[in-house]
């Protein structure tokens, strides 16, 4: 261990005395569970490690003794202890790097450097982001995935599978309700599996593919860095950008990633914004598919969601005052993504996603079937209908909102279905898209929210989000009517 760091004299003395103090404690050493190395324990204590000090607080006498040792060391130093320790290590590390790294002529890669600057600078970065959104999301996911692919698979289902299923069901089961369970309008195969494979699957597949490319290329951290300034301007920490950007892929995972945020306040705000105004892959896709033919409607939807995001962010940052941690993000190099990695990643995500939604969609079909059989479905639908009409939707969309409670993508798929039959006007599409975006995306996210933030906080958030979503829908409808806008 020739180059293990040797700390400044006062610190080394403090380490030695803490070591022998720990040794003297013997059985009474509360900290022995933390590390087998007394030197390491001593250093952690000197750096004021929170967990260790908390343990020590169980024994005020021991705590006092360590505090005395610490104060003695601190008094002999000009810098705070933890800084002095970190400084020693860094100096040692740099010295070691000098020995270990041989630098031949600097062949700094000029192209990646230029690319990096272009993506991070807002002046060029925002157009780049727009271009990615346009080609990658709008063209590829929206038009190709949600348009072309969905049409093909839907056509195949409607033309080839559904009639066959209905026929077989009709022949197998003499009883109408049993036929309805498998086939017809709300059957497990004709509705549940059709929604999952024909509408959601192609959309999510194209989106995940796109997202994987962005992820592996190293673009996402640069996007976060660029958006950092925007976030700071509304009073949020830049670090919160990370889960937000991940949320564009999957809000559930992003809610888990909020753990990387330093303060409770930041985690709270990030969780709230994720569940309110960050659309996940499934929502993006289906909504793009719904609105792709009407670019103006898409702009209104996008503008409103961004607006709500900014306002909600600003207000919640004001509502929960406090400091936000400094933004420190490791910027990985830009890499040319490897096709195999991207395909594996997309495949794994697809598999996970499909495994997650398929049972839910099937269960939803079963619940709806049960509800219709008992008449409960009609009661609930009739309850929702006034809400639907209040925000300007036709009565036929009431079931869609019921699905929306199961999963937002399920509801969106339902809308898709109605739209393809020509049952919705442009205005109604925009309003439905907005309301569904503001809803919580899925049960999985709710579950993670409860796990990460606790039941009470989650209940408060949900109690706000649901009425808020409808209220916004109502207001938008009102504004559309007053201004006589129609898409």
């Amino acid at each position: 261990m020739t180059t293990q760091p040797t700390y400044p004299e006062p610190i080394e003395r403090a380490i030695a005395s803490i070591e022998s103090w720990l040794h003297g404690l013997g059985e009474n050493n509360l900290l022995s569970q933390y590390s087998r190395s007394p030197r390491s324990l001593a250093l952690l204590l000197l750096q004021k490690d929170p967990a260790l000090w908390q343990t020590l607080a169980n024994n005020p006498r021991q705590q006092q003794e360590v505090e005395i040792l610490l104060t003695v060391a601190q008094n002999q130093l000009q810098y705070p202890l933890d800084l002095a320790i970190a400084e020693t290590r860094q100096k040692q590390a740099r010295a070691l790097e000098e020995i270990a790294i041989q630098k031949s002529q600097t062949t700094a890669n000029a192209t990646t450097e230029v690319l990096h600057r272009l993506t991070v600078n807002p002046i060029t970065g925002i157009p780049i982001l727009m271009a990615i959104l346009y080609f990658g999301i709008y063209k590829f996911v929206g038009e190709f995935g949600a348009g072309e692919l969905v049409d093909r698979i839907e056509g195949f289902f409607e033309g080839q599978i559904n009639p066959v299923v209905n026929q077989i069901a009709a022949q197998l089961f003499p009883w109408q309700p049993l036929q309805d369970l498998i086939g017809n309008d709300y059957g497990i195969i004709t509705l549940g599996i059709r929604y999952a494979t024909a509408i959601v699957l192609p959309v999510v597949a194209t989106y995940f593919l796109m997202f994987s490319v962005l992820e592996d290329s190293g673009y996402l951290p640069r996007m976060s860095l660029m958006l950092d300034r925007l976030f700071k301007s509304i009073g949020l920490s830049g670090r919160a950008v990370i889960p937000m950007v991940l949320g564009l892929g999957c809000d559930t995972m992003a809610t888990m990633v909020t753990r990387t945020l330093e303060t409770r306040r930041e985690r709270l705000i990030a969780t709230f914004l994720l569940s309110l105004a960050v659309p996940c892959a499934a929502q993006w896709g289906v909504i793009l598919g719904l609105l792709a033919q009407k670019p103006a409607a898409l702009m209104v939807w996008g503008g409103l969601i961004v607006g709500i995001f900014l306002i909600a962010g600003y207000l919640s940052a004001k509502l929960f005052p406090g400091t936000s941690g400094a933004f420190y993000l490791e910027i990985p190099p830009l890499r040319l993504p490897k096709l195999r990695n991207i395909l594996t990643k997309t495949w794994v995500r697809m598999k996970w996603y499909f495994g997650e939604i398929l049972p839910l969609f099937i269960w939803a079909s079963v619940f709806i079937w049960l509800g219709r059989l008992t008449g409960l479905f009609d009661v609930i639908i009739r309850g929702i209908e006034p809400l639907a009409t209040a925000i300007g939707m036709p009565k036929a969309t009431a079931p869609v909102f019921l699905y929306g409670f199961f999963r937002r993508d399920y509801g969106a798929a339902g809308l898709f279905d109605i739209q393809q039959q020509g049952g919705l006007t442009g205005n109604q599409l925009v309003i439905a898209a907005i309301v569904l975006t503001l809803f919580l995306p899925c049960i999985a996210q709710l579950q993670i929210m409860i796990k990460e933030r606790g039941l009470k906080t989650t209940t408060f958030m949900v109690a706000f989000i649901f009425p808020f979503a409808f209220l916004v829908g109502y207001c938008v409808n009102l504004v559309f009517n007053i201004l006589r806008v129609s898409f």
Partner: protein
Amino acid sequence: MNCHQCQQNCHSVKQKRSWWKRLTNKYRPEPVLAVDGTIALVGTPNVGKSVLFNRLTGIYVTVSNYPGTTVEVSRGIAKIQDYRVRVIDTPGMYSLVPISEEEQVARDLLLQESLDVAIHVVDAKNLGRMLPLTFQLIEAGLPVILAVNMMDEAEQLGLKVRSEALQTELDIPVVLMSAALNRGIRELKQTIIQYLSSPSNQPLINLEVAT
């Protein structure tokens, strides 16, 4: 982004939870498997710990060119020669003193589980920034292997790493590798075996209290 990670561990250890169990969030305990040793992958975010985990265990954990994607600890089994080795992938950490929740998880795991080897994965391009953690791991009395990863990218930048020098200075085994390109995996496995098969199978650092 990778939502499936929350379930990843369970799929990997061949225990599929039904969707209902997943909803109600009842985790089944991990099955107890006889292993010959336990190793942990440690390092700052985005140095390739998850890629290495994939390479060692054959289990796919989503890898991302985005720091902080691993927030949960993944466990898997690697078969190295005749050894069954438990491999633990940890969330990224900058220092042994944690600043966020997932760093706390990684730290507690490192210090409290009985590890046979801690593999400190570092980015060859930023060696100097990463070595302070190596020092801390050694100070903690852990048997450390330094895995200098992303050698391909370092070489593109014209950097050469003198592994013998690092090895003598730090007094721990050093392996140069590019996990994503499958380079250096065999060497790393051999080094792990050397640790596991050494007669004492004890940390090499003297833990006696200096008086």
